[in-house]
């Protein structure tokens, strides 16, 4: 039975082939450029205004952050940032600390959607992108921060300031694999007068609000103004401007921002409620209680009856007339 040998050898061969295919396909997941990539006569898009700092041992966090901040002229060194973002016992930096430190330097931190196309779009707009990569495997990770400064669609490479390598050319497939394993974490850090190329209204306003809640009020105000100039249909930008003025006890300014909010977006109850608060602080008792009434009419479950602060004395002359459009 000469065929017996063949049939016995076949399963082993098939198993070996299967194993090889499985192993090879594991590293052969090819990545492609998105359709939106500008594949044109000049395939290399590279930013030349991003300074490079080679990282010290383990300190890719402070080095990458310094590159991001100094592109915007922050004038920091990686050493300045070590205390803010480096955990010696962990040999590393946390994403949340990197983001918080950037805010402390007055930058708006905008999270990109987990898409390669968005990174490319930011590069085209001249914005370097901070990315997190996992250089090893999901079960044995090696986290690494790097700054994307360009891409080459002809050579299929991403260009990064990474570790000790300046303008390192990384094959697109390798970049995508390591970036995917880090949940596609990517951020741009910009002065609040500039808009990220991929900015979406609500996401941008949430980033602006993060500046407001962390006490970076000047930067937050600028970011809300940028939002207002870009999208006229976003009530949160006006509410934010009013809330910052209120927090700084600038009642006139707060009242005027809330007034604009209630005029342009009369169905947003927060505008009426906050207008009532600002007017009460100004001493405009009657106008304040009319505004509060209006907020309650719009959203009775949110605002308590009779919670308005009592206003003493006579009203100043510049109290507005508040007319509630909701009956």
């Amino acid at each position: 039975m000469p065929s017996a040998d063949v049939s016995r050898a076949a399963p082993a061969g098939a198993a070996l082939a299967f194993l090889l295919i499985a192993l090879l396909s594991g590293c052969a997941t090819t990545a492609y450029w998105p359709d939106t990539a500008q594949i044109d006569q000049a395939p290399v898009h590279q930013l030349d205004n991003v300074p490079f700092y080679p990282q010290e041992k383990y300190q890719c966090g402070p080095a990458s952050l310094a590159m991001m901040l100094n592109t915007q002229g922050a004038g920091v060194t990686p050493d300045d940032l070590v205390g803010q973002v480096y955990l010696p016992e962990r040999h590393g930096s946390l994403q949340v600390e990197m983001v918080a430190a950037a805010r402390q330097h007055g930058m708006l931190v905008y999270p990109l959607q987990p898409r390669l196309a968005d990174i490319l779009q930011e590069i085209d707009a001249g914005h370097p992108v901070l990315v997190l990569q996992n250089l090893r495997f999901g079960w044995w990770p090696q986290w690494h921060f790097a700054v994307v400064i360009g891409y080459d669609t002809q050579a299929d490479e991403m260009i990064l300031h990474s570790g000790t390598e300046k303008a390192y050319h990384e094959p697109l497939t390798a970049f995508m694999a390591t970036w995917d394993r880090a949940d596609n974490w990517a951020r741009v850090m910009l002065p609040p007068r500039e808009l990220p190329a991929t900015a979406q209204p609500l996401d941008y306003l949430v980033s602006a609000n993060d500046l407001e809640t962390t006490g970076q009020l000047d930067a937050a105000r600028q970011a809300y103004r940028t939002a207002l100039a870009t999208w006229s249909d976003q009530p949160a930008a006006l509410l934010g401007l009013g809330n910052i003025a209120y927090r700084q006890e600038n009642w006139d300014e707060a009242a005027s921002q809330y007034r604009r909010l209630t005029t342009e977006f009369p169905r947003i109850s927060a505008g009426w409620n906050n207008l009532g608060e600002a007017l009460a602080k100004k001493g405009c008792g009657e106008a304040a209680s009319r505004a509060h009434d209006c907020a309650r009419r719009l959203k009775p479950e949110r605002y308590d009856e009779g919670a308005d602060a009592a206003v003493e004395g006579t009203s100043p002359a510049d109290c507005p007339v508040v007319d509630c459009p909701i009956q």
Partner: protein
Amino acid sequence: MHTIRQYNRPIATLMSVVMLLFTLAAAPASASVVGTGELLTQQRADIDREDLTRMLARDDVKQALSDMGVSEQEVRDRIQSLTPSELASFKQQLADAPTGEGVVGIIVLFLVIFIITDMLCATDIFPFINCIR
């Protein structure tokens, strides 16, 4: 820095406690002014709710729901009573799903899980459903 990830959970827990304390401490100071974040959360929820409602218009979703004996109007009412965080978790599941037929499954499963757990009184999201027990 390979061990950073394993600290995600404890740090998240610690941060939620810290944030809760801050909220409690900060609330009386200007409880009366509505914060910008509150409006943003609301607006995000409104958008998510619209997206979810729009998905009900898909024929395959309609079919799947009617096969289970759930009327479209009932589901509409239920979507209205979902909280912002429930809507966000739904959106996350949808984003993680591969495109194609799986999407209908997630939409239906999500709605039905909330309805069924509520009927078993495991959660208390929909007050108009009578508990089995």
